[in-house]
């Protein structure tokens, strides 16, 4: 090894060590899927994304018990609820059976209930309440009911709690349509905290196994957190299995093609360096790296495996140093073009994709440079190259017909098979959760009559006080809508956090302690209650009258903090009240809302999510279109061969058309995942078309065809293995790239091999 070669090797090793050092000290992985949601400028879209991340229901683990008859399931449901309610992991565990015996009264309702409702403290009202409580106790009480009545003779506490419950607790234990007893366990941790969610699920399973029950009783757990945990486990196992299988197939193909085991080690070097340097760079730029960036990024960087294969094929009859010189212009322009496409991805609107784009673009460039500068030193090729310059150089006769024909056929196929619908804008289609699990979750949730997942009312204002006052006015109108049958019920922030104005007004209506005691004594006349039976009520009223007003900061430290967080958020400089609805009649409600003198929006989350994804996709396509133009300009400047560039462009477009037509006919439509995969197809198409349209000697052409065949075989095989995955995201990615790889190869091959054209005797 000469001095300069040694320096190059040392430089790469040093870069690898530096990257490793950066990763050791700075790399932080996160698994918050939210970073992959598109950034959005509209308030409604920001609200939608906030809802997906932290909205009502996102912290609920839904538990279904099945396998024995109804009554026995009700008993097991109750036992499981009791076991889970005692732990520290859940805010609340409900099974439809609302009873204060087990749940207690959470703060701030326990202390502030007198400020959460309008209460009539007149003697007549007190007398009526006392009479009702006497009748209640004539039927039977219990310790907790006695304590509750002593503190709250109006029993407002119970009606407040029932109103705040995340699901209907008025009809007894929940049973789903398929006969399962249903429980809802609200975790303290957010859904994206997968460690805490895994612990919560383990706690539920342990509690379930502790219940004395017959064989055949089964448990099913769904919910955002449960899906996150399952996915983490499944993706890890699936990725490991598929990676090992794909690596084995890749090695086997390379061994068959090159018959040199040493090359198997060398082939991974550009990819490994690209991975290390790319990862170190995004660690420095973004601080933390998403798990999906790693998984998808490594996949997209798969194009880099082609670079050493081109070098190997061209080194079979040439010295590696000569071979790389011969192919470098093509390899360089291919790598640059691919990097431009990936950079476009990073500009398309979410932090996750920005990471992915920068990571893969860096990786591809680094892999190309490693192939150019380091790999030739590591390959043991022929001692010296043949005098290539003496041989005639041949330029393939490039034909456009196959590619153009495929474009037309693909468009027709999309029209016929996909009914002209290319895009699938359902946000749920991006979900890696199997549809069957989503269906089960839906069935179980419907038993609990949780808030409607599609329609929501939204109020917003720059000041919290203004917002809450508007909300209170809206509550009155919503009650009218309930009375008129347009709505089953609603939950809004003002039910737990009244405006300061209303709290002060309610405080003012609480009589002074002496006056209240006098009224109470008068009301107690003729009742069976002792005179001191309601001392806790008098004490509480006196305290509440002088309490500082209830604030979001106070509630943040109470058991109902998560309830308020899911109904009151602060986004884009605005306070937003999210009013969840149950059993809304959206059309009638929309008409009614227009008559109200309050600026409230009825949001259709489904429509909003489709618009969000659609905007996202349009933005991504525009960026990719600009990137494509930039790639064509780059090719024209670099190659200055208009016909060849036109052929390359048509071939890549054709391969994309065929891929899109095939994928659309197999899936319901293209999602963002497919779009990411199509970027890799562009990279592959460019690589194959650039190399197969090269002007070179017949030996060189043989080597190029050998290399492109090797590239296409390895890419198609490895992504084909990914396409067999049970995880929708991996399946989409694998299938799209495998189809794209094979169609790119066949179109480039067919369009360049029909004719050959002799150019000059010494072209290099």
């Amino acid at each position, binding site marked *: 090894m000469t001095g300069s070669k040694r320096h190059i090797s040392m430089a790469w090793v040093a870069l690898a060590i530096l990257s490793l050092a950066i990763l050791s000290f700075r790399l932080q992985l996160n698994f918050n899927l939210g970073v992959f949601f598109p950034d959005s400028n509209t308030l409604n879209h920001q609200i939608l994304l906030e809802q997906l991340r932290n909205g009502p229901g996102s912290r609920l683990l839904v538990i279904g018990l099945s396998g024995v008859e109804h009554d026995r399931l*009700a008993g097991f449901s*109750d036992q499981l609820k*009791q076991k889970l309610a005692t732990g520290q992991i859940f805010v609340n565990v409900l099974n*439809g*059976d*609302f*009873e204060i*015996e087990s749940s207690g009264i959470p703060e701030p309702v326990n202390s502030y209930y007198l400020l959460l409702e309008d209460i009539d403290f007149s003697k007549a009202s007190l007398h009526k309440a006392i009479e009702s409580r*006497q*009748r209640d*106790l*004539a*039927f*039977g*009480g*219990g*310790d907790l009911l*006695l304590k509750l*009545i*002593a503190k709250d003779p109006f029993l407002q506490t119970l009606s407040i709690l029932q109103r705040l419950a995340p699901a209907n607790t*008025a*009809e*007894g*234990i929940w049973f789903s349509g398929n006969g399962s007893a249903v429980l809802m366990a609200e975790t303290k941790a957010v859904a994206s905290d997968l460690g805490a969610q895994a612990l919560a699920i383990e706690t539920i399973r342990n509690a379930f196994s502790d219940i004395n029950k017959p064989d055949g009783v089964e448990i099913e757990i769904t919910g955002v957190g449960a899906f996150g945990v399952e996915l983490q486990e499944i993706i890890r196992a699936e990725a490991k299995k598929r990676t090992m299988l794909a690596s084995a197939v890749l090695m086997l193909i390379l061994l068959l093609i090159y018959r040199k085991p040493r090359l198997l080690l060398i082939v991974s070097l550009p990819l490994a360096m690209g991975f290390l340097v790319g990862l170190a760079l995004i660690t420095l730029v973004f601080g933390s790296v998403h798990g999906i960036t790693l998984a998808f990024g490594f996949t997209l960087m798969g194009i880099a495996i082609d670079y050493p294969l081109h070098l190997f094929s061209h080194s079979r009859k040439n010295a590696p140093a000569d071979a790389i010189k011969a192919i470098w212009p093509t390899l360089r322009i291919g790598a640059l073009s691919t990097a431009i496409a990936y950079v476009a991805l990073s500009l398309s609107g979410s932090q996750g994709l920005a990471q992915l784009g920068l990571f893969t673009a860096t990786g591809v460039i680094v892999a190309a440079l490693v192939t150019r500068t380091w790999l030739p030193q590591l390959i043991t090729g022929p001692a010296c190259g043949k005098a290539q310059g003496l041989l005639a150089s041949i330029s393939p006769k490039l034909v456009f017909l196959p590619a153009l024909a495929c474009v037309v056929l693909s468009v027709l196929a999309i029209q016929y098979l996909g009914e002209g619908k290319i895009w699938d804008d359902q946000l749920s289609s991006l979900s890696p959760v199997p549809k069957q699990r989503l269906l089960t979750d839906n069935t179980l949730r419907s038993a609990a009559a949780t808030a409607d997942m599609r329609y929501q009312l939204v109020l917003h204002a720059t000041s919290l006080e203004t917002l809450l006052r508007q909300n209170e006015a809206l509550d009155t109108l919503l009650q009218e809508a309930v009375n008129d049958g347009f709505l089953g019920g609603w939950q809004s922030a003002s039910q737990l956090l009244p405006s300061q104005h209303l709290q002060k007004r309610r405080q003012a209506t609480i009589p002074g302690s002496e006056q209240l005691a006098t009224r109470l004594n008068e009301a107690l006349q003729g009742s*069976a*209650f*002792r*005179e001191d*039976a309601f001392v806790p009520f008098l004490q509480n009223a006196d305290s509440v009258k002088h309490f500082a007003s209830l604030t979001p900061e106070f509630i943040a430290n109470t058991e109902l903090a998560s309830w308020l967080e899911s109904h009151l958020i602060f986004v884009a400089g605005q306070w937003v009240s999210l009013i969840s609805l149950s059993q809304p009649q959206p059309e009638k409600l929309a008409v009614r809302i227009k008559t109200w003198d309050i600026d409230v929006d009825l949001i259709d989350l489904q429509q909003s999510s489709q618009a969000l994804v659609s905007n996202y996709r349009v933005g991504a396509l525009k960026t990719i279109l600009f990137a494509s133009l930039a790639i064509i300009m780059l090719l024209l400047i670099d190659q200055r061969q208009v016909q060849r560039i036109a052929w390359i462009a048509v071939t890549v477009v054709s391969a994309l058309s065929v891929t899109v037509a095939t994928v659309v006919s197999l899936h319901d439509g293209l999602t963002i995942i497919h779009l990411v995969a199509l970027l890799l197809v562009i990279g592959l198409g460019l690589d194959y078309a650039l190399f197969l349209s090269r002007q070179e000697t017949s030996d060189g052409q043989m080597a190029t065809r050998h290399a492109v065949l090797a590239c296409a075989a390895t890419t198609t095989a490895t992504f084909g293995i990914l396409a067999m995955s049970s995880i929708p995201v991996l399946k989409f990615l694998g299938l799209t790239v495998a189809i794209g790889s094979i169609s790119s190869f066949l179109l480039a091959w067919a369009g360049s091999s029909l004719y050959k054209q002799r150019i000059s005797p010494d072209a290099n």
Partner: protein
Amino acid sequence: MLCILILISANAQGFDVHEVLTNTAVTPPDRVSFREERHNPMFKQPIVLTGHIDYIKKGRLRKVIETPFSESYLITDTFIEISREGTSQRLSLSKSKPMRTMLSGIEAVLAGDTDKLSSQFQLELTGTEHDWFLRLKPKSNRLAKHLTSMLVRGNETNIISIRIDLKPGEWSLMEFQGAAPSS
């Protein structure tokens, strides 16, 4: 203590729970009047209720309070319907396990359903067949936190009274009219 147990055991010899409850069983439809005292720590004096119980059919009772106020409870296996001042409110019995267990226990006593009683309570029969006491203690620990015990008193042909002890210090005694204890 052992002596007491032996004494109780000896006293109860010659008759068993199944036998006494079969003898006192009421076949629906039937009606029985009651006087009930309810004591709890919030009351300065017990509330005294009078009224009647209609045993409509198996699994369905109606408790009608006539004094000191008018109110009725239709009790089924799954719900209670409370009629108060011209309005009715139906409550699911799954909301309160102690209530459900107590009510089903009372119905089982009236119906002479020993199997149902023994599935939910530990049964302890004392006294003589002319004046016996059947103490029902909940088997479920959770239920025992709320319901200490139920004590049924009877003679050869009738249930005389049912005393229900709740925690803490709340109890009621329901005496059935026209069923004087034989002494």
